[in-house]
């Protein structure tokens, strides 16, 4: 799954640590999601979407083959 987390975070001027604090996860988790090493669960995806004020599908998209 691809995501626009890094770009959206940059738009808001948030560091990984600040985003992690807002999501109540570790910075490691934010990093793993940004780099595509981990796909978040639906509840976490909803929390991420809420932080950026966007729909989940505007942040996450399926891998295009």
């Amino acid at each position: 799954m691809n995501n626009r987390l890094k770009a959206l975070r940059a738009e808001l001027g948030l560091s990984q640590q600040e985003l992690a604090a807002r999501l109540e996860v570790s910075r490691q988790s934010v990093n793993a999601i940004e780099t595509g090493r981990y796909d978040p669960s639906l509840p976490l995806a909803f929390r991420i979407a809420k932080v950026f004020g966007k729909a989940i599908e505007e942040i996450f998209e399926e891998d295009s083959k």
Partner: protein
Amino acid sequence: MFCSGASAAKKRYERDVLRFMAAYVVVILCSAWFVKHDGHERFYLYFWSVIPAIPILGVLVRMGQYLQEEKDEYQRWLVMQAILVGTALLLGTVVVNDFLRAFANAAGLPPFAGFMIFCMGMAVMQVVQRLRNRVSADE
């Protein structure tokens, strides 16, 4: 640099594991002493043989509790991955050893090897995870 990712639940878990291991050191010394000096009766021999297993079982139970307490799903996933690798290494070793014992009359695994193999598998996976996280830690 490594990401600093230890949650409150993980810190509590690590603290409790250290306590269990400290208890294990004390108990194993006591058991060895009692078996040597008072190990003639079968009941006491069994008793002092089983007692050192309790802190180790405590670590396993605490591991399960940690997985329930950990709110950070990525951290939980990392620990579950490490547990799976440890379990796979242990079961793989046991299966190979069983066939060697059955068909080649090879010796069984030495005492305490099981838990050590499990821990080794977990440790190797945790090192791999740390290396992976280190590579991509820069923002």
